[in-house]
């Protein structure tokens, strides 16, 4: 009788440990905070598909756009159990959710994985008289606030790049806001605005097809697409290196409170996914620069972006909550 009881007790204790299978045992849900078909969405779908193959479970990508700077999606992902079965697909633009009143936390509550970013480029309409950045900025300096520039939405990373360009070169543009990068590129093609600043990935097809003429990259290195070589803006205006580059950071994140085992498994799968042939080829074809930072390093990058964005928005007068109230340091 006692022996039976002992055996039962041992089984009872051992059973949960034997039942505790390794993470992951179920499908993972990736909630992308931006709309379907956009840069963040496509990046997340490709990397999630590769990670799913490595981890052996499905990763279902769903879109939950809305709120301000993706606050609804982040709140939903953060509100689920912190067991590693809900990932949030986000981008650098989400760092403004706090100061715009959509969210009450800082970005350090996430454990991020940065997939890639695409460098920003400034382009003009094909029939524009300006052939180099120098000419263009001279014209802008000569007639301040008359040259119309588009850069996606107000407060977006492209707008910040435009502002940095203005600060570093002394030119002043007439900023015309659009709801996103694609409409501002359309407006540049139709001639409604004179120049546009968006990422290379978004403009690549239009540049190759001759619908937009690139003037310069807003990063230290130039770039070459097909036969078109785009010089770096830093060559003529070294002052820009004080304010630029501001790189995109598209990726995914899990809440920082998930178990360490989850973090290790996901980081491993993530690194392997980024090194895979498919993702490398996709990044090359679409002009993305793979990043690959995870955890600590990625968090630092996000924190830097958060400071920069938050305090720039204060200057633009669009904040609802002061960055000080959230504890965001100045850049």
């Amino acid at each position, binding site marked *: 009788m006692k022996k039976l009881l002992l055996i039962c007790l041992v089984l009872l204790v051992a059973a949960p440990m034997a039942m505790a299978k390794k993470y992951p*045992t*179920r499908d993972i*849900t990736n909630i992308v905070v931006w709309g379907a078909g956009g840069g963040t969405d496509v990046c997340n779908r490709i990397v999630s598909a590769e990670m799913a193959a490595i981890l052996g479970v499905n990763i*279902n990508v*769903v879109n939950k756009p809305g709120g301000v700077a993706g606050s609804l999606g982040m709140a939903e992902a953060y509100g689920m159990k912190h067991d590693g079965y809900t990932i949030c697909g986000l981008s650098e633009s989400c760092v403004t959710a706090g100061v715009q009143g959509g969210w009450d936390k800082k970005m350090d509550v996430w454990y991020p994985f940065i997939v890639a970013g695409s460098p920003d480029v400034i382009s003009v309409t094909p029939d524009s008289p300006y052939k180099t950045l120098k000419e263009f900025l001279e014209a802008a300096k000569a007639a301040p606030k008359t040259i119309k520039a588009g850069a996606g939405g*107000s*407060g977006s990373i492209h*707008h910040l790049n435009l*502002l940095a360009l203005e600060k570093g070169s002394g030119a002043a543009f007439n*900023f*015309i*806001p659009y709801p996103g990068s694609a409409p501002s590129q359309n407006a540049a093609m139709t001639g409604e605005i004179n120049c546009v600043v968006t990422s290379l990935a978004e403009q690549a097809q239009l540049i190759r097809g001759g619908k937009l003429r690139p003037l310069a990259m807003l990063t230290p290195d130039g770039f070459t697409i097909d036969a078109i070589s785009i010089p770096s803006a830093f060559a003529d205006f070294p002052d820009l290196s004080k304010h630029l580059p501001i790189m995109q950071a598209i990726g995914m994140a899990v809440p920082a409170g998930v178990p360490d085992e989850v973090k290790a498994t996901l980081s491993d799968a993530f690194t392997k996914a980024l090194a895979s042939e498919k993702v490398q080829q996709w990044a090359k074809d679409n002009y993305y620069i793979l990043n690959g930072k995870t955890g600590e390093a990625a968090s630092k990058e996000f924190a830097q972006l958060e400071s920069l964005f938050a305090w720039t928005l204060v200057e*633009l*007068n*669009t904040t609802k909550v002061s960055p000080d109230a959230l504890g965001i340091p100045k850049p």
Partner: protein
Amino acid sequence: MEEKNNWLRGVDFYCGLGIMIFGAFVVVEGFGMPLRDSLGGVQNVWYVSPALSPIFVGVGFFLLGALLSAIGLNEAGAGEIKRVLRTSLAVDTLLSLPVQRFLVAATIPAVYIFVLIPRVDFCIASILFLWLYMMLFFLVETEGFRQLQLFFALGMALLCATLVTAGRFWSESMPYAGDLLTAACTAAFILRARGVVARHGSGAAFWRTLAICITVTIILTVCFRFFLLVPLPTEGTVVEFMDRIRYNEF
């Protein structure tokens, strides 16, 4: 017909007044929006300001509301208008059958959407919603229906009150308490209704309705959760159970 038309005009008069007040509110809000300083990197002028459309819409509401009230007053006459106000607020209009039916038809989805969906497992909440909605209109000819209606109303009020107030306290200790409570409530309703229906004799229809409710809900939950991969609003006991079956975690 003439009388109905007059009544409509009388109501129009009050609606028009309400719309005018609303329009004024919109215009006031509009003037509170930035009309001059720079915002988001864009210099504000009257045609750029976010206030342009609210002011336009507010003025539009004001004018249209005035027009509506004028037409109402013109066609119905002052006497009719006073009569409309009196009869609308009279007790027997508020308790009449069409108004009752409307309250029932509107309250059940309201309770479902605002109270049940965010707190209770989607499957259980939907079964309760479907069954209650079907039953209350199906059973109208049954005798003893009044007491049944009252029983349902009291039961739902109690359930909602418990879920809303105590929900916060038990979410850590007993994760599925809300589900169990709602399921128990549903079972109580079903048993009570069965008693009434059995006396009336339409037992077969009763069980058929229940079967339809449960089958449809389960099919929809499975389709949306596992085929369309849509995470449901609240995933509690039943969905957890389905998950376990799917992943063979027994």
